[in-house]
């Protein structure tokens, strides 16, 4: 592998990894929030961050965000299954809460929006410390209507925080279509908060990656926040067992045909960056890796009552 094809290969890996998680966890848990159709957006957002960067991921994609920050696959799987071998004794749900020590801010109480403020706080900490770390605040099109989202963008711009806001615009929020949830354009809101913003094709991983590179570099330089809107489509149901009787099958199929992984595969092969065999090998290795991790996690023990441990609620003074 040469240096020049390292990034594309990593992006491909993240995309297929996301797809594989969907297949494995979704089959087991009907409440898994699937990512089919949004794999390019996810890989492009989370690829290539540095250790001290902090992410408040959108809940749809939070496991991929944790993996991109170096979290362990099998331990996360255990957390999706409520096993005691999960991160942090399995006390939270890993599908939407990654390990904070790796820079993941979870959706602890389940309310969309406030984590964007927490990410702004992590960005402020980096700025006060003089570090070149940044924070990402990622949200869905539905979440973009939360006051917290507007407040966080305004705050980050006023305080000139090293932050990147990213909207995973999959054009639907549960059953609420984009036009019923969002007035005007999300991208245009960037300008109203005085920050650069860009709309990119969320099914084009290279476009997402390039926009992210520009925004993160700007944040690291101390030039303040930016907003990127990745336009894609939620081919998956809201959750895996969603009956989806609120939308048009044909529309789903139209978008399924624009499938980002096949598109990127074709590009990598056509440009001679990777061979078909290389990519097949990645696919097979990932299937094996994810299946094995999931199987191991399934066999892990469930927590016992003693793990309720009410004494752990408050942090004790450090010795």
């Amino acid at each position: 592998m040469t240096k020049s094809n390292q990034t594309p290969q990593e992006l491909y890996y993240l995309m297929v990894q996301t797809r594989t998680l969907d297949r494995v966890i979704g089959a087991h848990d009907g409440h898994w929030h699937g990512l089919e159709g949004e794999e390019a957006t996810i890989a492009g957002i989370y690829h290539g961050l540095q250790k001290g960067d902090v992410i408040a991921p959108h809940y749809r994609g939070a496991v991929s965000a944790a993996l991109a920050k170096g979290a362990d696959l099998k331990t996360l799987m255990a957390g999706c299954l409520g096993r005691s071998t999960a991160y942090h004794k399995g006390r939270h749900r890993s599908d939407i809460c990654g390990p904070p020590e790796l820079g993941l801010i979870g959706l602890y109480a389940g309310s969309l929006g406030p984590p964007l403020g927490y990410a702004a706080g992590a960005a402020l900490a980096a700025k006060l410390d003089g570090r070149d770390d940044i924070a990402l605040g990622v949200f869905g099109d539905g979440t973009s209507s939360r006051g917290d989202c507007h407040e966080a963008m305004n705050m980050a711009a006023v305080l000139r925080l090293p932050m990147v806001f990213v909207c995973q615009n999959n054009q639907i929020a549960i059953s609420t279509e984009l036009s019923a949830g969002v007035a005007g354009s999300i991208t245009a809101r960037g300008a109203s908060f005085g920050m650069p913003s860009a709309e990119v094709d969320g099914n084009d991983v290279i476009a997402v990656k390039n926009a992210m590179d520009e925004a993160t570099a700007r944040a690291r330089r101390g030039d303040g926040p930016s907003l990127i809107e990745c336009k894609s489509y939620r081919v998956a149901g809201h959750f895996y067992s969603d009956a989806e009787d609120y939308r048009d099958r044909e529309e789903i199929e139209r978008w399924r045909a624009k499938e980002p992984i096949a598109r990127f595969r074709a590009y990598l092969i056509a440009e001679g960056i990777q061979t078909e065999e290389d990519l097949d090998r990645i696919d097979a290795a990932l299937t094996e890796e994810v299946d094995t991790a999931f199987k191991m996690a399934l066999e892990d023990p469930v927590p016992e009552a003693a793990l309720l441990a009410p004494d752990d609620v408050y942090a004790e003074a450090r010795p």
Partner: protein
Amino acid sequence: MTRMTFQQATVAAIADEMRADRDVFVMGEDIGRFGGPLRSNAGLFEEFGAEGRVIDTPISEGTFVGVGVGAAMYGKRPVVDLMFLEFLALVMQQFLDAGAMHYYSGGTQRVPLVVRAKFGVGPFHGHAYDHHSWLMNMPGVKIVAPSNPDDAYALMRAAIRDDNPVLFLEHMALYHAGKAEVDDDTPLSLGKASIAREGTDLSIYASALMTKRALAAAKVLAEDGISAEVVDLRTISPLDEATILTSARKTGRALVLSEAIGRGSSSNDVAALLAEQAFGDLKAPIRRLAPPNIPTPFARELEREYLPSEDRIVSAAKDLMG
């Protein structure tokens, strides 16, 4: 030892912690050059503003408390000024999340955040609402309500050093109400009630302004031969159960005061604790004294009627004595 008002002691505690630890910073609306309403941050901008450690924010309570949460997660010790306690409604989600983080993260994550709020009836007319009890239902959050300058100083320093989210209550009737000796060597820890006055006939449980009124009532009661012990809770969550129980077991009678309306008040937890664990030692039913279950009134006359007064504390205590 210096003589200070409650306000001066609180700001002095923050300034001392800012000098001791560069990770401490303050944030809120109009706390810079303006110094905060009622001088709640007076002098901090002049000393620390140039270092970027006094941060004025837009009117975005949920988000600036959220910024405090995120900064606390990643190495800072923010002291965030919410201005007035009625805005607590705007930051409930942030407290809920922050309070859960240590537990959910299996002890990995600490959130050393102080949120200050002014409240209570007083010379500053308006913003009197006492809504702190909402947070009683949130695991992992601490609530502190000092009743005098010395405690305000020690408890603010302790709150800043504490590794949990803390709501620090600053009563506006106490804020500029005279100076008292402030001892900067008082040991720093949250979670300890104090015996503000020793007595043998009944225990009065209170915090903030109610402690001041309880102490005044205890003097009147003493003239009538009734010896009242005043337990100043200081930390309302988690409660200092040992001190609360020891006092009731000694006196055999309990009068629990609340500035918040009775329904859902934090003081009910004191009553429940006594009922569960000291029932056998009680000579009379537990008595609660709280405002009626109405929104805080505005007119001074109504406000006076609304709150437990010195007189009403005295007569409730006499009732209890039977």
